C-alpha cells in the first residue's frame, strides 16, 4: 500500500513524536482517518467503552489492550494471579506445588496482598500473626508513587475498616480502593541503598501469548540510605524508588538520575555473589513476568488491533528473590537524563518496528510474527506458538540445573523461555 501511515497521539512526548516523524508518518487528528494511535489510558477507555466506543478498522492499531487494567491495576493483578494459582492447583499442575508451610514453590512472587476495604478482616487476621511487620498501602488507581504510605499499626488504617463508624466513605467506588501488601523490608541493598528494577515488556498478542523483553531495563536507586527503622517509615525518599518522588530529594543528581543499567546490576551481582545465583535470579525474573501474563491471558480481550508495552516494577530481596510489585500500562516517557532520553527513544523505536511491520500501513490480520532482524533491543521472552510447536522439548531452564523442579508436565503450561540475556 502506497499511503503513509497516519498517526495520532494524545501524549506530547518528543521520544514518541521524533520516532513517528523519522518514519515519514503523517500526523492527523483523531477525527480523521488514522492508522496508528498512541493513546493514554483514558482514551483507550473511551475507544472501547459501550457508550462512546467505535469499531476499529483493519488498518488501525492502538497501543493498549481494552482491558489492560486486569494486569495494570494493583488489585486486579493480584486477583488474577490468585485465581490462576488456584486453577493450576485444582488441575494438579506441578507448577502449583507448595512447600511444607503451604507457600507456593514457583508461584509465590507477589507479596501477600489484600484489597481494602473488602478484605479488611482477612488482613487483620494476617496482620496479627506478625504484628511487627510493616505493610504498604497503595491506592489502586494511582501512579508515580502518589498516595502511598507505610503502616505498622492497625490504628493507622482504621478508616478502611468496614465496621468503622468513622468511615468517611460509604461507597466503594474504585477510586478510593486500596491494596495493602506486606512490605518487603529486607530489600537487596547496593551501596546501602534500596532500588527496584524497571523492565519493559511488549505483548503483541495474548492468545497465543507472544511477548518480548527489552534488554535495556534499569534500576532506580533511592537517594537516601535505606533503613528499616520505624522512625523513617514516613520518609518516602528512603522507601519509594519512583523517580517522580526521588527527583524532589535534595541529593537527586541530574547526570545519572539515580539509575543503573541492568547490565551493571548483573556485573555487580556476578562479581560479588557468583554466576549461578545471578543467572537464577534473572531466570526467575523472566519466569514471573511470563507467569503474570499467563495469569491474565484468559481474561484479556485479545483484540487484534492492540499491542501494549508494559513497565514492570520488580524488587529483589536480600535472598536474591524477585518480587513483582506492579505492572504499568503507561510507563513514563519522560526523560530525566540524557541517557534516559536515548533509552526511551530506542525503546519506542524498537516497539514500533515490531508492532507496525516495515513502518507501513498496518493490517491487523497479520500473524504478528516479526522477523528476528527487527527486534532491536528486544528479545523473545515467550512465544506460546513456538513453545507448543516443540512440545517434546521439556527443557525449560535446565542450564542452571536448578531446583525449580519439573515444569514441562503439560504442553499447555510448559513453554520455552527463549531468552538468553544472561549470556
Amino acid at each position: 500500500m502506497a499511503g503513509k501511515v497516519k498517526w495520532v497521539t494524545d501524549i506530547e512526548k518528543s521520544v514518541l513524536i521524533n520516532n513517528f516523524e523519522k518514519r515519514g508518518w503523517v500526523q492527523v487528528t483523531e477525527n480523521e482517518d488514522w492508522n496508528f494511535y498512541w493513546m493514554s489510558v483514558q482514551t483507550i477507555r473511551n475507544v472501547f467503552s459501550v457508550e462512546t466506543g467505535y469499531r476499529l478498522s483493519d488498518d488501525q492499531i492502538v497501543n493498549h489492550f481494552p482491558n489492560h487494567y486486569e494486569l495494570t491495576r494493583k488489585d486486579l493483578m493480584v486477583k488474577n494471579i490468585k485465581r490462576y494459582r488456584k486453577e493450576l492447583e485444582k488441575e494438579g499442575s506441578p507448577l502449583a506445588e507448595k512447600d511444607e508451610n503451604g507457600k507456593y514453590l514457583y508461584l509465590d512472587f507477589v507479596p501477600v496482598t489484600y484489597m481494602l476495604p473488602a478484605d479488611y478482616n482477612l488482613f487483620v487476621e494476617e496482620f496479627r500473626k506478625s504484628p511487627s511487620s510493616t505493610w504498604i498501602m497503595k491506592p489502586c488507581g494511582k501512579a508515580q508513587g502518589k498516595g502511598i504510605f507505610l503502616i505498622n499499626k492497625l490504628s493507622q488504617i482504621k478508616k478502611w475498616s468496614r465496621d468503622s463508624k468513622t468511615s468517611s466513605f460509604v461507597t466503594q467506588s474504585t477510586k478510593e480502593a486500596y491494596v495493602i501488601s506486606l512490605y518487603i523490608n529486607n530489600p537487596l541493598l547496593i551501596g546501602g541503598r534500596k532500588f527496584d528494577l524497571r523492565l519493559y515488556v511488549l505483548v503483541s498478542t495474548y492468545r497465543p501469548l507472544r511477548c518480548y523483553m527489552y534488554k535495556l531495563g534499569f534500576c532506580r536507586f533511592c537517594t537516601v540510605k535505606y533503613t528499616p527503622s520505624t522512625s523513617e517509615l514516613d520518609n518516602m525518599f528512603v522507601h519509594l524508588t519512583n523517580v517522580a518522588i526521588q527527583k524532589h530529594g535534595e541529593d537527586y543528581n541530574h547526570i545519572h538520575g539515580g539509575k543503573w543499567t541492568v547490565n551493571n546490576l548483573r556485573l555487580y551481582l556476578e562479581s560479588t555473589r557468583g554466576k549461578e545465583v545471578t543467572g537464577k535470579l534473572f531466570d526467575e525474573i523472566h519466569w514471573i513476568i511470563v507467569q503474570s501474563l499467563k495469569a491474565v491471558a484468559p481474561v484479556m480481550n485479545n483484540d487484534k488491533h492492540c499491542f501494549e508495552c508494559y513497565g514492570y516494577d520488580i524488587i529483589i530481596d536480600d535472598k536474591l528473590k524477585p518480587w513483582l510489585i506492579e505492572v504499568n500500562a503507561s510507563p513514563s516517557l519522560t526523560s530525566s537524563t540524557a541517557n534516559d532520553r536515548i533509552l526511551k527513544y530506542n525503546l519506542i523505536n524498537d516497539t514500533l518496528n515490531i508492532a507496525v511491520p516495515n513502518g507501513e500501513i498496518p493490517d491487523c490480520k497479520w500473524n504478528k510474527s516479526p522477523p528476528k532482524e527487527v527486534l532491536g533491543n528486544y528479545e523473545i521472552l515467550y512465544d506460546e506458538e513456538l513453545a507448543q510447536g516443540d512440545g517434546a522439548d521439556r527443557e525449560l531452564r535446565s542450564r542452571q540445573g536448578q531446583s525449580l523442579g519439573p515444569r514441562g508436565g503439560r504442553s499447555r503450561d510448559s513453554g520455552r523461555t527463549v531468552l538468553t540475556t544472561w549470556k
Partner: protein
Amino acid sequence: MLQEESDLSLVIAQIVQKLKGSNLYAQLERQAWASLQRPEIKLESLKEDIKEFFKISGWEKKLQNAVYSELSVFPLPSHPAAPPEHLKEPLVYMRKAQGSWEKRILKSLNSMCTELSIPLARKRPVGEQKELLNKWNEMGTDEPDLSLFRPVYAPKDFLEVLINLRNPNYENGDSLSFRTHLGLIQVPLKVKDIPELKEFFVELGLTTGQLGIDDSTQVPPELFENEHVRIGQKVLAEQDSAAAQQYIRQGSPTALRAELWALILNISSQPEDILYYEQLKTNVIQHDLLVDSLIYKDVKLTASNDDYYFVFEDYLYQVLLCFSRDTSVLGHFAYNSASPPKSYIRGKLGLEEYAVFYPPNGVIPFHGFSMYVAPLCFLYHEPSKLYQIFREMYVRFFFRLHSISSHPSGIVSLCLLFETLLQTYLPQLFYHLREIGAQPLRISFKWMVRAFSGYLATDQLLLLWDRILGYNSLEILAARAYCQLL
C-alpha cells in the same frame, strides 16, 4: 655466574628480612610449634617432617605466595652499594624534577591552608566524633561547604610538568630527522616497540582465547569460555598466586575476579587486617585532616556524577579517609621516586624533630584520585577487604601514574610509549592531529593517569585491570590508549 649468585642471595636475604617482620612469619612459627604434637612429626627427621607438613597443609603455598608478592613489588637487584635514592629513581634529573613538582604541590596545599585559615590537622571535639561515627555509613549525605576548596592539582597540570622534562645530558641536535620524536614528551627513555610488545603480551595474541572477546554471545561457550572458567576454579582451589597471575592474562570470569585479584595481590582478610582497618577508622573519627576536604570534593566532583559508581559514594569516603591516615603506605616510598611531604609543627619550621609526614600516608590526592577506588566497589563490598585491595593496588601500580620516574611502568614511559606507537604506526594521524593543534597525548593523558577509570564501561575496565595484574605492568594502558585512536 658469580655475580648472578650474589645478586640472588642479596635478594633472598632482603626478602627474608622483610618477611621476618610479617604476620605470616609469626603464623608459620606458631604452626610449626603446634605441629610438634602431630604423630607424623618425628624428632630424628624434624626439619623434613615439618616441611612436609607445611606442604600438605597449604602453608608452604602461603609462603610461596608471600615471596612471589615481594618479588613482584621488589625493585630489581642493584649494586649493593647503591644509595637508597637510586632505588627510588636512578636518574638524577628525574629525581630533581619530582622534587620540584612536590615542592609546588606542597606550596599549593599550604597556601590553600593559610588562605582558608584551616589547620592541616585538628582533633575533633567529642560531639563531632559521635556524629561522624553515626554517619559513618552515609558520609555522602554530609554537605560541608566545599566551595572554597579546589583540588591541589589536576592531571593537566601534571602533564605540563612532564612536557618540560629534559635530560641535561642529552643533546638532540637541531636538525629534524625521521628519528625526531614529534610528541610532547622529550626525554630519551627506552620503550617497547610493537614486536617487543607482542612478545611481552604474548597471551593477548590472536590465537589465544580471551575473555571479553571469545565469550561474546555469538561464540559457543564450549570453544573457550567453559574451559577457561574451569581452569580458573582450579587455580583458586590451589591458591597459587603465580598461577593466578598467569591465568588472568586471558581475562578473568566475572564470578572469579574478586578472589583472583585477592590471590594475586596476596590479600587475605585476617583478623589483624580488620583490626587495622578499624584502627584507621578510629583515627578518622578522632582527627580531621585538611586532605579530608580534598577527598570529599574529589568524590563529589567525579564518582558521584558517574553512571556506574555513584552508588558507592559512601564506600569511597570510608576507604580514602582511612587511606590518608595509613602510615604503612609510607613503605612504598622506598621504591617510589616521590617522597612524602613533610610538615612542621607550628613555629618549628625546619626543625627535623618537629617534622611529620603530611598527610600521614604521604599521598596528596589530586583531581580524580577517588576513581582509582571506584571500580573496586563492584568486586568487594566488605569495607576492610575493599580497603586492603585498594591499598595494595596503589602501592603496586597506581602510584606510578602520578610520579615522575624512568620506570617502564611510570607515567613518563607510558606517555612516551603511546606517542612512539602513534608516530611509528599511525604517522599520518599523528601528524594531522599535531597540525590542527590537538596533540594526541593531551587527549589520552587523562585516560592513562586514571588507568581508564571513568572512561571505560566497568566490565571493560575490569578486563583491562586484569591484564595490569597479569603482566605486573601498566604498559597495557599505553597500548589501550593507542588502540582507542585506531
